[in-house]
């Protein structure tokens, strides 16, 4: 079994524990062993705390990386924001010797040193590279046949591409392939490249942007919007309610975190996955429970 250190961040464990539950269920079935980290903090977030002081932001990120280094394995995140912070921190510390020395002087105060031995991966990249689409399909007992899944990549999984090195930022295919592995049909709507808008403190700008994005998802008649970031999720769930009211328009597009979709396809009952806590509930998924799960995963 491949082992990876789990960096949970803030949003998933505290606000969306259903996502953490799904991750733990599904990785086990994919043959990935989770090594839990002790004493992690916020990554820290790449928008607010980074805006206060980049050097402090980098130092706290380096501390989180050191915690993974102690376990001797690479680290994975479940949030694109954590991925952005930890990947960028790793990159800066690796490239810039002067900065590395500055940060390591701070870390020395708490008896740590960043060495760069644990690399950073988003969980979506982890399952693509260490499990593979075929093996993901083999764990599916309830194929999501015919389900129309709109894709939201978000920003920080792909960009900056020279640091992330995940996929072509102008024409990615990874999430489509992950969705296909569950038997569903990916829908790349026209505004797929837009940002969720959460990091922007303006009010009108993100509202207009999300309205455009959700309009194209609706035009494509997608049944849900699949994403891999809890921040984007919050925007499209709570935020969707706000803009539906603002524009007096009904988008009715439930957002779903990919690993909850995976857990469901792997046989986890709908009611165990916490969907009832969403403002827009993906009830379209209930139709896959009518069929009896296939006894054994086909291989």
């Amino acid at each position, binding site marked *: 079994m491949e082992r990876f250190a789990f960096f949970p961040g803030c949003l998933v464990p505290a606000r969306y524990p259903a996502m953490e*539950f799904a991750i733990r269920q599904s990785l086990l079935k994919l043959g990935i062993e989770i090594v839990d980290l002790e004493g992690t903090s916020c990554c820290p977030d790449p928008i607010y705390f980074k805006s206060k002081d980049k*050097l402090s932001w980098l130092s706290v990120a380096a501390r989180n990386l050191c915690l993974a280094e102690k376990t001797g394995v690479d680290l994975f995140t479940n949030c694109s924001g954590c991925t952005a912070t930890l990947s960028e921190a790793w990159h800066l510390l690796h490239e810039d010797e002067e900065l590395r020395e500055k940060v390591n002087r701070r870390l020395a105060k708490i008896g740590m040193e960043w060495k760069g031995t644990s690399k950073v991966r988003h969980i979506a990249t982890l399952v693509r590279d260490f499990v593979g689409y075929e093996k993901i399909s083999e764990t599916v007992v309830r194929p999501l046949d015919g389900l129309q899944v709109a894709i939201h990549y978000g920003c920080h999984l792909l960009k900056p591409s020279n640091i992330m090195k995940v996929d072509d930022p102008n024409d990615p295919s990874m999430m489509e392939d992950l969705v296909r592995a569950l038997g569903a049909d990916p829908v790349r709507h026209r505004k797929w490249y837009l940002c969720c808008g959460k990091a922007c403190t303006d009010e009108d*700008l993100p509202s207009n942007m999300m309205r455009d994005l959700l309009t194209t998802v609706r035009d494509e008649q997608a049944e849900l919007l699949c994403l891999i970031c809890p921040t984007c999720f919050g925007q499209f769930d709570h935020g969707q309610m706000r803009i539906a009211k603002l524009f007096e328009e009904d988008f009715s597009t439930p957002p779903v975190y990919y690993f909850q979709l995976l857990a469901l396809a792997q046989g986890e009952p709908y009611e165990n996955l916490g969907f009832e806590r969403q403002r827009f509930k993906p009830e379209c998924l209930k139709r896959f429970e009518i069929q009896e799960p296939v006894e054994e995963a086909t291989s």
Partner: protein
Amino acid sequence: MAAEKGRAAKGGAAKGTASKGGKADIVHVDFAFKRELAEKIEGNLASFCYQCGACVGDCPAATYTDDFNPRMIMLKVLYGLGEELIGSESLLWECTNCYNCAERCPQDVKPVEVIISMKNMMADRGIYPEGVEKVINTFETTGRTVPMSSAVDKQRARFGLPPLPPVPMEEIQALIGPAPATGEE
């Protein structure tokens, strides 16, 4: 450098100005602003901007507002027009942090990082939007952006997950304090 920084900080926003209305618009470049920005991580990158405008086309903030334009922001940085960039009504907060500008820039300027560095300068002067300050305070006091609570642990228990462990705050505080404005490394 430290002395320059001290002077700029004391005067509030740095003093770059563009005077208009004469025969020609005269810009007084404020080098103190630029030097202070260059002290921030990747704040010096703006110097390499040659104003091609590649950053504008894919910028969501430029698409969805009239006033936000990353090329213009980089031009103001080149001139050191600090007051127009980092005042209390700063439009830098309209940036969505999507990194499209960094993807498109042929000069590796990373406008988004230069913008974040200018936000660091605003923070040194105590200028934050209210919502931003709230998140920062939550992190600095709890080590998380969503603090632990009994309600959170109850939700976690529903999914068979253990309570959230506390963050060793003495370690976090050793890393982030004292305030960076004092020049401590």
